[in-house]
């Protein structure tokens, strides 16, 4: 396999005295789909916050495309093509759908996709482009959050709990979109509490427990691993 596009090395994240991430290391190959799964509070979202630049890590390194970006501000990582779809969607409710998309593109104007391409990919957004994003349903807002990241034509997209709080049918749609994204060659890091769905979509999986990686391996093997099945997958 080629050089990894994203390397996380001994990453530590702390909130005050509480250590949320305690030395996590993993790599993501270009074009791959890596899933980080684990219980609520295991530190999955904190890993993404540090990788995307929303939080300063307490220690460790993040390398993107061969360059150390650990101390770079979020907007410069986005400009380089490392884009986060945050937990809880974080769409801007008083701005219109179109304005949300325009903000998603503004750091990568040269590479960005035309807005119409996102409307082709997410037809539901096309009908609502002039409406305040806050008027969309939860599922539609999640689509907007993903579209807002994809319009920047990222090289790596970090998805934080994209299926959280959605109806089962919308969860299916979100995972269909994730399939499309990876089929288009974009590298994906997927954080999910829905471990089974995430591991089915991924090539590689890492299971986080209290801020550390407890199990790693090809996703198909983790799906069979009795320890993982018992703790995170349960009986289907």
């Amino acid at each position, binding site marked *: 396999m080629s050089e990894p596009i994203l390397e996380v090395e001994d990453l530590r994240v702390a909130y005050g005295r509480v250590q949320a991430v305690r030395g996590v290391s993993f790599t993501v190959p270009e074009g791959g789909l890596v899933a980080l799964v684990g219980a609520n509070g295991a530190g999955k979202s904190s890993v993404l916050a540090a990788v*995307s630049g*929303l939080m300063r890590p307490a220690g460790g390194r993040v390398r993107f495309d061969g360059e150390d970006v650990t101390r770079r*501000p*979020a*907007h410069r990582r*986005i*400009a380089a093509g490392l884009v*986060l779809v*945050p937990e*809880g*969607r*974080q*769409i*801007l*409710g*008083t*701005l219109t759908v179109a*304005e949300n998309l*325009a*903000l*998603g593109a*503004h*750091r990568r104007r040269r590479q960005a996709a035309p807005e119409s391409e996102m409307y082709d990919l997410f037809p539901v957004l096309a009908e609502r482009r002039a409406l305040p994003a*806050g008027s969309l349903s939860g599922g539609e807002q999640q689509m907007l959050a993903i579209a*807002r990241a994809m319009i920047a034509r990222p090289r790596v997209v970090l998805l934080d709990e994209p299926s959280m709080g959605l109806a089962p049918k919308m969860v299916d749609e979100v995972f269909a979109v994730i399939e499309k994204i990876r089929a288009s060659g974009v590298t994906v890091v997927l954080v999910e509490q829905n471990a089974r769905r995430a591991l089915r979509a991924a090539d590689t999986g890492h299971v986080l427990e209290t801020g550390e990686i407890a199990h790693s391996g090809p996703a198909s093997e983790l799906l069979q691993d009795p320890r993982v099945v018992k703790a995170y997958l349960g009986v289907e």
Partner: protein
Amino acid sequence: MLQQLANGVFAGSIYALFAIGFTLVFGVLRHLNLAHPAVFTAGAFVGIEVAARTAIPVWILLPVVALFGALAGVLVERIAFRPLRGRDDEHFAGLISSVALGGIVIALLQARYGTEPQSFAMDYFPDRLFEVAGVRVTLTQLVTLGLALVLMVGLAWLVSATPLGRSMRAVAENPTAAKVLGVNVGRVTAGTYALSSALGTVAGALLALNLGQAGRDLGASIELVGFAVIILGGLGSLWGAMAAGVVLGIAEALTIHLFDSTWKSMVAFALLFAVLVLRPRGLFGHVKVREV
């Protein structure tokens, strides 16, 4: 009567200019910048000094004052607010530290200019008197009103239609989301303060131009009325501040007309009180629909 209305509109346009600068910072960053009146006063003194030293005409003088204001605004944020960022009490602490910074600015003005009011030269901006339909207005008043309108419409355009404005609205609604989208929050913060203080200093210079002079208490004299305007219009609402500025200006003028000038301040604060009790979000403020 008509004359009083006109006077009210002129005074109100200065109130509005003062208020939109203050309310802009609150609307975007949730900071209550109580150094704003001191910056306003500084704008008046700087205007007077630059006019005396260089004799540049007023349409160059005001942009120079605005530039000074923009720099001052960036400094206010750096000194009074940025060091407190991330603390639990950051908003309250910022409010207090901005009061302190405002005091320092006034003390510096006193150190440089002394305690006596400073004046524009008599012939700096030769005033002319017009009479329209029995209402007497001065050229200075017309310039003030015109400029206030241009600046307010310009600011509204900037916020609604430019990339900086879009970023400002993004930060106003959800700073985390703005950061996720790659908005350079530091730059938007600096830009917001620069705009706010540029408007504040120009308002100060305009008031000094109307009065012919400025004392250290120029900002203090407008401060409370300015805050009444901001509450009346709805904290964070630009259009509200503009409309409320004029409403208050007219209300004051009518009070003078109907009673006498000692009742002037009472009207401002009675209005403020009534709004706080009856409609706490202000005349034009709206309840925000927030994402959970």
